[in-house]
């Protein structure tokens, strides 16, 4: 077990937002987090990587309470890609990806071959190898997302927390991105809106609604027509795809 949460609670603006969530990400596996808008996915992810103070409960990273670890120690393990990332600074793609090396460098240590190699490989993996010098402000939405993911890869994490990483990506890049994350062999926790993508890539899926964890388990047991009706209020038909052997969801208009 690498990253786990026990009975997490968090409130903001006088409202309970994460309400007693217990879950564990299996090592090297992809855990999908699904749920309606405002169900607390982003909030839960922030708690899991220690960016917010829990009200009660613990987040455990390899057996230690994450609140006892330094920010730097956490950043060497867990890389995060937030749902929204923006800046007014005139940074280039390379500047952004170099940020990923921050937790691995001292305040005065020079830029090493290892740093350069990590940046180059991260850029290549997201297909931005030839775009190093392009200013951030001129990137398309999907390119920005991929630059942020390259930054996270340059961190060389053992746990990867991604908040809607397929946002803004075209079909090809959505599939490539999730296949890339799976292929890294790191433990990943990924908030996703597309249930079919979750079914296709995740080893486990957790369903969040109103800050509570409703269900979790392998996609075929969690992503059922009943769950989709209950949580999203949408009628759907789920069948096992002959192509992938995974559940495939079709929505019904009514």
């Amino acid at each position, binding site marked *: 077990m690498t990253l786990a949460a026990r009975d997490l609670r968090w409130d903001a603006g006088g409202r309970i937002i994460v309400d007693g969530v217990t879950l564990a990400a299996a090592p090297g596996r992809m855990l999908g987090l699904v749920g309606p808008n405002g169900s607390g996915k982003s909030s839960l992810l*922030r708690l899991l*990587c*220690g*960016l917010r103070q829990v009200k009660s409960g613990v987040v455990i990273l390899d057996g230690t309470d994450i609140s006892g670890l*330094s*920010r*730097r*120690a*956490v*950043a*060497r393990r*867990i*890389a*995060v890609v*937030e749902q929204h*990332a*923006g*800046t*007014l*600074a*005139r*940074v280039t793609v390379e*500047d*952004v990806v170099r*940020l*990923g090396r*921050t*937790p691995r*460098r001292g*305040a*005065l240590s*020079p*830029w090493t*071959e290892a*740093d*350069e190699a990590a*940046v180059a490989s991260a850029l290549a993996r997201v297909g931005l190898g030839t775009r190093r010098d392009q200013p951030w*402000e001129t990137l398309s939405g999907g390119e920005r997302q991929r630059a942020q993911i390259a930054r996270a890869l340059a*961190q060389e994490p053992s746990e990867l927390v991604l908040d809607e990483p397929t946002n803004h990506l075209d079909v090809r890049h959505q599939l490539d991105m999730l296949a890339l994350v799976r292929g890294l062999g790191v433990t990943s926790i990924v908030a996703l809106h597309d249930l079919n993508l979750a079914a296709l890539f995740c080893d486990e899926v957790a369903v969040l609604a109103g800050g509570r964890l409703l269900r979790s388990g392998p996609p075929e047991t969690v992503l059922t027509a009943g769950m989709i009706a209950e949580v999203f209020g949408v009628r759907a038909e789920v069948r096992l795809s002959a192509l992938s052997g995974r559940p495939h969801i079709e929505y019904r208009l009514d």
Partner: protein
Amino acid sequence: MRGIALPGTGWLPWVLAGLASLGLLGLAVAIAMTVGEMRIPLRVALQALGNGLFDLGYAVNPIQQGVLLDYRLSRALFAASCGGALAVCGVTLQALLRNPLAEPYLLGISAGASTGAVAVMVLGLGGAVLGVSGGALLGAILALLTVALLAAGAGGASERVILSGVAASQIFNAATATVVTTFASAEQARGVMFWLLGSLGGVRWPDVWLAAPVTLAGFAICLVHARTLDAFTFGEDAAASLGVSVPRVRLVLFGTTAAMTAIMVSIAGAVGFVGLLIPHAVRLIVGPRHSRLLPAALVTGAVFLVLADILSRVLIARQVVPIGVVTALFGAPAFALILTRVRRSA
């Protein structure tokens, strides 16, 4: 391979850039020594400098020697420290607050420092223990806390910080005006008002010995945090997720900028716009990385304020325009330019 060849990773480009900057600064200071009520040729200025530093024994008119060493040199060196410090503060605050308009003056830190300094000067608060600099430091910290409180009350977003800073400036300027009009003698009031606008007229060597070390120490602290400041590019959460201890860094860097601003204000009054103008100008040339931005801002700010001081002495014959007025003359149009740029990229 590529990264190794970039300037900023090898030592040679740094050394060359450093030497060039020092040369430029030296030139500005040399010009500052020759210009003024009494025009003194550069050769004489250098000879006087040689006498002062190494006892070379050139025959220099003692009055000229006195003007050069006791007034102009100390004044130019203080202007350099002050300009460098304010520019470094601007770079640091803009990165920490992720706001292109953040700088000591607009954030109300200068106004707070003025209030603190005036309280000590006019009311004699704290007496000999606190001193004018100590009063300014307390005022600057108080202003920062006020801004933080106002910004938190307004939702804590980084755009609100400047609004809060403007509000804090108003509060502290009103406090300063109240103290001056109520408790100061006419003589005192005139002096304080002139100092408030920013004036280097009263600068002497002890001021340089205070300001220069503060500037260099503050710069060193900010430079050690250069990568940390880079990590703030996408906000505080992003910085934290890159391993930055945000509360500690905020404490250290807000403290450092408050101290630098307070010392400069206690000596020269509130000089505006340097902290706004220089970081943006320098960013256009050296890019957004703080390991280059901070040293470049230090040198450019220093040269800028030395030149502004020269201008303040020659703009109107036989009169010294307050340096704050000269920097505002250049700062205000630059401010407008930046505002339009911000709108375009938003």
